[in-house]
């Protein structure tokens, strides 16, 4: 690539630009701040320190990877790219394996399975909520994690979205009772291993993810040719 494009950069003169500031020292200061906060939280509760540190890890990875759940849903339609979509599918597959291993271990030991609060009722509210969320994240340029990450990156737009996200959440919480009464309470919670068995559920889910991966890649190839 480098030899093909050597002409491109030589066109540009960067003489009139101010010299770049080196932000690395500030970066190390931020890391030091993260560690100090963790130590302070640890005095009070190691659990709190753990949440803080995993949060920074998630933020760091999301930013470094430019990992964007919004893009994974939006780009296939809007720009025809599916590379993020495929990465999200990979994440789902790996995490499914890890989660199921943990859950299966608890089930085998006769203990309550962790994370079952995330197996939630399916109703029209799920679809409506997801649909609204989907519109919102594309317009606002980031979902919940993406908004937080971009607040950290210095996007004023996402800071505004963040404020309204909180207002919207409060509004949603206000109306939650109504949705619960009419729709959510009537919806079933379906934990796939209850239907297909542990092995069956994992295999079926991984197969679906695999198919989606292949479809995404083929779709991108097809659309790429149309340009």
């Amino acid at each position, binding site marked *: 690539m480098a030899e093909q494009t050597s002409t491109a950069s030589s*066109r540009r003169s960067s003489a009139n630009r*101010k010299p770049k500031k080196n932000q690395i020292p500030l970066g190390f200061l931020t890391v030091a701040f993260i560690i100090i906060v963790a130590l302070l939280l640890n005095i009070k509760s190691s659990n709190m320190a753990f949440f803080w540190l995993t949060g920074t890890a998630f933020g760091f990875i999301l930013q470094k990877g430019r990992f964007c759940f919004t893009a994974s849903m*939006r780009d296939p339609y809007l*720009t025809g*790219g599916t*590379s993020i979509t495929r990465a999200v599918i990979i994440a789902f597959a790996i995490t499914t394996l890890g989660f199921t291993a943990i859950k299966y271990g608890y089930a085998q030991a006769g203990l309550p399975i962790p994370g079952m609060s995330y197996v939630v009722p399916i109703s029209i509210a799920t679809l409506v909520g997801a649909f609204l969320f989907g519109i919102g994240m594309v317009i606002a340029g980031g979902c919940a994690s993406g908004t937080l990450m971009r607040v950290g990156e210095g*996007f004023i737009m996402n800071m505004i979205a963040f404020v309204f996200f909180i207002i919207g959440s409060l509004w949603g919480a206000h109306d939650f009772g109504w949705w619960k009464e009419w729709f959510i309470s009537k919806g079933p919670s379906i934990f796939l291993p209850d239907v297909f068995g542990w092995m069956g559920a994992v295999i079926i889910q991984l197969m679906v993810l695999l198919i989606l991966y292949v479809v995404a890649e083929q779709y991108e190839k097809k659309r790429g040719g149309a340009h």
Partner: protein
Amino acid sequence: MKEVMLDCYGEACPVPLVKSQNKIKELEVGDVLIVQIDHSCAMKNVPEWARKEGYNVEVEEVDDGEWEVIIEKTK
């Protein structure tokens, strides 16, 4: 052989990519499109798209958090 600047400073994803896709259609083979961006995700997805299209691409960091994606329309 002309050089077109596309100012996408302050634009959030996916706007820089959509604008680049639209703009490059107007250009002729041999023209160069320079997309100015400060959205860190666009700094990845604009070059990725352009490389996939088979254009010559270079990314230059012009300032802290500001990039120019230089795309030569080769076909």
